[in-house]
């Protein structure tokens, strides 16, 4: 087994601020011994002298512009879940500890081209998601988690190396459990190395069964079963916007983070998607704005999806300042690698791309294919349909025009001769259509090929029931 521990020390703050790039001092607070204290703060706050553990009052005295949020454990839990969804592409065995994600990566090393390539990929993408992580690898999850917290950057693959790595670590850092830490402080042993030198019976007596088991797991001497995490069937995440957003362009930043997360999730499932549901939550008590985004082909390329979202946004009016952006995907489709090469040596992806770009910017309803239908009524023999729909062979015969005027345009008559920019010369009877009695839209028409004095060739018909003339088509 080869475990990667990813520790997110700044998670308490990141859950509030990752939706935007914010300037200025920011902090998360927690109640400690009856007063509100700084738990985590950003670099800007540290520069102003703000430190973890400081009372909020004192911090505000140092920096009046400090923005702070009370810690939200539920939101941190959500964020870890979201990170796991993203990380599912790298590992199919994932488990958690507080602020920690543990991934079994032994099985995926070959797929990703070795540990360096895999780490590189993970560490490159984490900041793009808005998180800063510390990492370590070890043969078991307990050790990977501990090392990620206290000795980040450690890479340990053997038990000997693990023991050597652990020896100098202060015993008090073995656990984050407050009661156990008090006990460890009391027994007068300095480092994990000191403990490992003791006979087991004495160790058991001094540490108690809980800590002993933890130590055994750490060294891989006791099984370390973890409940394997299962990804949810659908993707749904939202991102907070601490500085309210009033123009669409500012939604691109958080949208990219959501899409990166989504695409990691999709890769992990071997899936792609063709339909995204975005929602914008407004500050005022307004219903959220739902935005549907359809794609012509399933994809999981974040840049592609972002480009489409950007275009889609151009048609969205923000009703009020936005405080939260959400993304949901209900349908995951099997992902087919772009087979490419069926058109002039380039991929089908590129073709979908241009169609999609048009559909996103203009709206799908303005984009269509032309399809024939087997109906004798000309107005029912043609339909504009979604590109992917097939058509049927038309039934109409005889000389047919290239353009249809819909609805047919009534023609004035003079001395019984129909007029359109002058009297029409009827060149040829083209067809008689009697149809539609079964659906109540019956037609009884005689169609003619006609010409006006300007030389334009027209398709006209006489309604046989009332004798009126109509222009129905142009021959061009």
């Amino acid at each position, binding site marked *: 087994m080869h475990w990667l521990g990813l520790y997110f020390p700044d998670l308490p703050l990141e859950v509030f601020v990752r939706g935007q790039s914010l300037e200025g001092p920011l902090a998360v607070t927690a109640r400690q011994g009856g007063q509100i204290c700084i738990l985590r703060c950003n670099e800007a706050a540290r520069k102003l002298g703000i430190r973890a553990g400081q009372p909020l009052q004192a911090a505000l005295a140092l920096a009046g512009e400090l923005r702070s949020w009370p810690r939200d454990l539920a939101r941190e839990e959500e964020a870890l879940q979201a990170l796991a969804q993203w990380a599912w592409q790298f590992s199919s065995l994932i488990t958690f500890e507080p602020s920690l994600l543990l991934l079994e990566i032994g099985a995926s090393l070959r797929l990703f081209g070795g540990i360096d390539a895999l780490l590189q990929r993970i560490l490159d993408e984490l900041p793009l998601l808005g998180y800063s992580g510390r990492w370590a690898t070890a043969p078991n999850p307990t050790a990977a988690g501990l090392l990620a917290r206290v000795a980040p950057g450690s890479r340990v693959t053997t038990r000997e190396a693990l023991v050597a790595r652990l020896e100098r670590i202060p015993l008090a850092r073995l656990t984050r459990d407050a009661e156990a830490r008090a006990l460890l402080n009391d027994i007068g042993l300095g480092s994990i190395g000191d403990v490992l030198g003791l006979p087991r019976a004495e160790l058991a007596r001094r540490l108690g069964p809980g800590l002993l088991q933890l130590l055994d797991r750490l060294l891989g001497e006791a099984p370390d079963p973890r409940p394997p995490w299962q990804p949810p069937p659908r993707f749904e995440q939202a991102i907070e916007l601490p500085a309210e957003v009033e123009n669409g362009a500012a939604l691109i930043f958080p949208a990219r983070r959501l899409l990166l997360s989504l695409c990691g999730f999709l890769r992990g499932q071997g899936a792609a998607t063709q339909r995204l549901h975005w929602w914008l939550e407004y500050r005022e008590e307004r219903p959220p704005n739902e935005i549907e985004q359809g794609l012509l082909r399933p994809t999981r390329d974040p840049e592609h999806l972002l480009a489409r979202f950007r275009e889609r946004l151009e048609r969205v009016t923000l009703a009020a300042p936005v405080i939260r952006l959400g993304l949901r995907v209900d349908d995951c489709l099997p992902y087919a690698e772009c087979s490419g090469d069926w058109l002039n040596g380039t991929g089908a992806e590129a073709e979908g791309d241009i169609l999609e770009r048009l559909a996103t910017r203009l709206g799908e309803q303005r984009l269509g294919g032309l399809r024939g239908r087997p109906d004798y009524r000309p107005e029912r023999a043609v339909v504009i349909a979604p590109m992917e729909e097939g058509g049927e062979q038309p039934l109409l015969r005889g000389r047919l025009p*290239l353009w249809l005027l819909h609805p047919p345009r009534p023609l004035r008559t003079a001395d019984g001769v129909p007029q359109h920019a002058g009297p029409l010369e009827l060149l040829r009877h083209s067809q008689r259509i009697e149809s539609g009695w079964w659906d109540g839209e019956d037609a009884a028409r005689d169609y003619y090929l006609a010409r006006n004095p300007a030389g334009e060739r027209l398709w006209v018909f006489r309604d046989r029931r009332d004798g009126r003339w109509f222009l129905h088509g142009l021959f061009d």
Partner: protein
Amino acid sequence: MPEKAYQNLLEEGMDRGLVWRGRDDRPQGDAVESSGWPVLDECIGGGWPKGALSELLSRHRLGLSLLLPGLARLSREGRWLGWVAPPHLPFAPGLVQAGVALDRLLLVREVDARERLWAAEQLLKSGRCSMVLLWPQTLRDPQIRRLQLAAEQGDCIGVLFRPLRVAAQPSPAALRLRLLPSPLGMDVEVLKRRHGWGGRHCTVRVA
């Protein structure tokens, strides 16, 4: 006369089809797609210029019938045929009768003046279309140049359907034809073409 002024004069002369550019023009500009009408091909230098714009000027922005043999052939070659803002509903059975395969035909409808240009440019330069037909509203010179550039980029035949009255304005399009319906079919007058002079006439028996 300063050099810049000569340059402008030369450019305008080229745009009006008054300057014969010889055989040393950009080589890709030489490729043509036969119109399928021998008499027309002879008039326009072999066919519709590829990677370039052609303008069809007529009273009611007609001229589709001239394109039909070419459309029919290109519709079976895999790339898209883009139709941006056609003035009426294209009559599918009529096109099928003329041999056009409909499944490669892409319609962009109900778009305003700006969106039409945007859509046409995207399609022209995408490389995914063999021909793009555009029924524009008024067009200014820089816009035509932009479309011309897009057509070059995507190796696409761009066809603009424009009213007769713009015949007097110069245009950077590679080919400009004035169309008049006649009892025998369609009278075509070449206003401008590459590597040759305008002024030739022919009648295409489209009907």
